[in-house]
């Protein structure tokens, strides 16, 4: 294992190194109470970066797949049209990205750069992005009521897809693990020292303990829910019940680190100039499938809920992208007005199945 140990007091020096290399670094900051967010690190706020804090609701995927992104500029002149694609490929780093969000980015990678497909806008931002993953180790501050990365198999410690991974060993020390050559290159800094077998054993022991601090929630039934959704075994009335509780606000998709849907919109920016932007879209919204002229093949709310959970949980899509569109961050559960985030939906599916099983004759 390419592992090093460093003093807690030196952890933020990694941020300094990245900034010295010319990276725009984004890191988590605390606000009041549960209110936390990723923000750009400056000389002024650098000291306020927090390692242990509740994972911000607004996921860091926006640094690669922005909420609103300009795709091209179009200029009219003399009867002609000039179309100029607008690319941005800033050198960036996310410091403190949680394992669930690393898995979310991996899903986006598979989706926007998987198989033969290349989304050039995504790719340009992605290849200049450096990820410093922080393992959630503090049950009081890192791990929320709704977290279920242990069930989604994405955390608390990501196994891959980061450049550098940090884990608080307690006792004033952190362990750093390199996931890429770029991450390993940082180890030349003087504040890293070689890890010992004892350090590795400490890491393992801490992870073992952390895994126990997740709420023993029904999401342990997650994989069974995947099986049932994939087999199309969920009854219509369950989707209807879920649909009844959906206020169609789109909040779940807004905070989701693995949602990919977008819409495209033109806006006039000058008398002869238009820019085309893409904006996150949400399958929860009624207009998502409405065509010009008004025909909407997916009118009912519960059809749209069904859609979301099928896209996230069905075996078909997991195979299609070779990764799953739910990473167990629990944000959708935290923001949902109607309490139909992923954990609740899994629970509703579990209850329904128990009910069906009760009535099905047992084959002898």
């Amino acid at each position, binding site marked *: 294992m390419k592992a090093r140990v460093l003093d807690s007091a030196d952890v933020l020096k990694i941020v300094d190194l990245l900034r010295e290399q010319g990276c725009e670094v984004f890191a988590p900051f605390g606000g009041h109470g549960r209110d936390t967010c990723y923000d750009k690190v400056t000389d002024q706020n650098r000291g306020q970066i927090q390692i242990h804090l509740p994972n911000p609701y607004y996921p860091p995927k926006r640094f690669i797949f922005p909420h609103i992104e300009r795709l091209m500029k179009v200029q009219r002149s003399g009867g002609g049209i000039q*179309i100029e694609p607008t690319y941005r490929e800033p050198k960036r780093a996310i410091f403190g990205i949680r394992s669930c969000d690393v898995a979310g980015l991996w899903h986006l990678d598979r989706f926007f750069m998987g198989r033969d497909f290349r989304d050039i806008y995504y790719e340009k931002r992605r290849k200049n992005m450096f990820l410093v993953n922080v393992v959630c180790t503090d049950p009081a501050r890192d791990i929320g009521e709704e977290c279920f990365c242990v069930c989604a198999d994405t955390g608390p410690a990501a196994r891959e897809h980061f450049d550098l991974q940090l884990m608080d060993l307690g006792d004033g020390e952190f362990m750093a693990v390199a996931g890429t050559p770029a991450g390993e290159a940082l180890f030349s800094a003087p504040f890293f020292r070689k890890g010992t077998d004892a350090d590795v054993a400490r890491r393992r022991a801490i992870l073992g303990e952390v895994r126990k601090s997740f709420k023993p929630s029904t999401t342990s039934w997650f994989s069974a829910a995947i099986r049932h959704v994939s087999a199309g075994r969920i009854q219509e009335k369950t989707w209807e019940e879920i649909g009844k509780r959906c206020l169609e606000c789109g909040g779940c998709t807004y905070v989701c680190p693995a949602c990919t849907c977008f819409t495209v919109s033109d806006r006039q920016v000058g008398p002869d100039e238009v820019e085309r932007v893409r904006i996150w879209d949400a399958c929860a919204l009624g207009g998502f499938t409405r065509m*010009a002229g008004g025909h909407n093949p997916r009118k009912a709310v519960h059809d749209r809920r069904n859609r979301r959970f099928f896209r996230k949980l069905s075996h078909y899509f997991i195979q299609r992208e070779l990764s799953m569109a739910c990473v167990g961050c629990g944000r959708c559960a935290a923001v949902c007005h109607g309490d139909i985030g992923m954990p609740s939906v899994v629970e509703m599916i579990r209850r329904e199945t128990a009910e069906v099983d009760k009535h099905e004759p047992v084959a002898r």
Partner: protein
Amino acid sequence: MNPSPAENVYLPKVAVLDRVVDEIAEVKTFYWRFEDPAEQAAFKKFRPGQFAQVSLFGAGEFPASLPPSPTEEKTFFTVRTVGSCTAALHQLKPGDRFAVRGPYGNGFPMEDYYGKNLVFVAGGIGLIPLRSCIIYALAHREKYKRIQIFLGAKTPRDLMYRDNLREWAQSAGVECHLTVDRAAEGWTGNVGVVGSLFKKPGVQVAVEDTVAFVCGPPIMFRFVIKDLKALGFQDKNIVSTLERYMKCGVGKCGHCCIGVAYVCVDGPVFTYEQIQKLGEDI
């Protein structure tokens, strides 16, 4: 990370509008070509049943069926004005620029149908995507057995592609049957829904070894399917195209996804057997 330079799949190419032809009320045909002849040549490799994304900058982008057959010289769209993008296209005059990207989608596997009878059933502007197949089949006439066309429109004034209809009516290689929901003065043809043509005296719909192409409004589609099944058609031998709200055309924006399929890449052509499995309304 894969460092290979990617092409920009969202970038449309500039096209010039050459000619506009009125078809029926609110429907026009727009003859266009790419400014760049190389783009035009590349685009011309499309298959019947594919579609393109049409950009009217300022209004947006919309998916449009390709009514021409790749065997024809000209490229054109036939578009009804329904929303802001289509309305913007209808405003254009010959010589105006807009932009196009594509072709997209799977298209009809016309080669797989070699040696079979072809039955085309179209309602209203459902003829737009089927026109491509019909012209293609007639250009490869020797590859197919019988070719039958059943076409319905609301009134005689709603019949589009009149030059083609005349040709097909006179051509020995194709049986073309027309019907209207409401007759008008001078109309001597059939009156009734398109399915009523199947039972007309003298009409014998090919069923064995036949592919039925069905395109039209959802209500027409449901009735025609019933009629075709009554004639003995199997679901897998009925093909259609699905229409969905689309933004990207390349399987990424998420809007056209039904069940396990993205209409833009896995469709828009599906057999009725596949459509039923997708589990959503037409």
